[in-house]
């Protein structure tokens, strides 16, 4: 009985706080994506010739987001029924977009206008990862192009 109460309390806390932090995070993501739209992020490996006189430097953005208890329960149930794990999709979507935003913020501070050769890396961290409770890290990195005064 006590186990069930603990389970339900953790579930309710996970759902409540998880939804709250997720909606807050998405609001922040929407605003910042809009604000940083001018820093173009492209995956191509070689910049066009007109950028050959630009300075270039590595920029990166990294984020770690924890899985809440409710999401682990839903994902664990999904393991039985199969199908799309929506609970984790939102987690990774947030993490990817946040990592890009942080990378863009670094680029903006350096005065860059474009980041090319952008790549992602995703990994799971956390001591309780084996139990489904863990955190996900997303790292985005690329080469920022900074216009030289004499290149303009």
């Amino acid at each position, binding site marked *: 009985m006590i186990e*069930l109460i603990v389970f339900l309390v953790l579930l309710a806390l996970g759902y409540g706080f998880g939804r709250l932090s997720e909606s807050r995070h998405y609001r922040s993501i929407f605003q910042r994506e809009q604000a940083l739209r001018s820093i173009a992020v492209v995956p191509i490996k070689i*910049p066009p010739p007109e950028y050959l006189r630009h300075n270039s430097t590595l920029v990166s953005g990294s984020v770690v987001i924890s899985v809440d208890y409710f999401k682990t329960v839903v994902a664990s149930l999904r393991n039985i029924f199969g199908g799309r794990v929506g*609970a984790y999709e*939102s987690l990774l*979507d947030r993490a990817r977009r946040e990592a890009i935003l942080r990378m863009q913020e670094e680029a903006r501070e350096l005065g860059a206008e*474009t980041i090319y050769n952008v790549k992602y890396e995703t990994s799971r961290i956390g001591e309780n990862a084996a139990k489904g409770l863990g955190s996900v890290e997303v790292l985005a990195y690329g080469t920022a192009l900074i216009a030289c005064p004499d290149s303009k």
Partner: protein
Amino acid sequence: MSFPKENPQLPEGINNQHDNPFVDFVIMAGALLLAVVAISFLIGWGATRIAPAVPFEWEPNLSFGPSDVSSEQDQRIAEYLQQLTRDLIPHDADISEINVHWLPDIEAANAFATSGGNIHVTRGLLDAVKSENGLAMVLAHEYAHIELRHPVVLMLEQIGHTLIALVTGFDNSSAGAITQQTGFISLMAFSRDMERAADERAVTLLNAYYGHSRGSEELFEHILQTDKDAAHQWGLWQSHPATQERIEFLESQKKGEDTHVSLRPLPDWLEKALNREP
């Protein structure tokens, strides 16, 4: 070719459809609960029908307690319990070879049956009952478990639930926990049904032997008096029906004329052995 001047504004919902996970949870948890309850019911239903077909000789002989009786007095008590049980068993019973084990060192008032036709009686139980009738009720109840093949039913149910747990995850995952909890609750529901069936059969055996079932509630009255929590214990996780419910059932089984019948006392030597005034 040139770089774009700004990032395009992509539509939302490509990588994350923003579904409410609560709806997902309710559907999946509900389906899992229903499935486990349905399978548990099938296992319980099947086990109660398969168990009687399993030959009694196949039951593993499982017993606890001292293999040799320590003192002459313990030997005498063990023989008395064995004889009383033998007297309660109908002459035409299919299972008549029962071994009663006396556990003189256990203070908790308890008796239990194990597979292979073994009944165990603790010292605490003899302290709890006031008359032979009260003791006979407990022995008859345990014999009823054996006669109704409850140890086999329990074994089959546990095998079934272990299989479900293996399929859904025997680890600490949440789905595994939900399955195990639901399975356990189902097992307890079947256990309570078995206890009720054993009580009912025990009353029949008492009526056949004594001609009445007075005194059958002695142990349960003792539990209510000594265990403050017993009056409130009822729930999905309990292996036995509520003590009060069992007393009410036993009272309902008494015949009108039973109130005038005197109870058969425990033998004087046993009262002395229990350090009580006969």
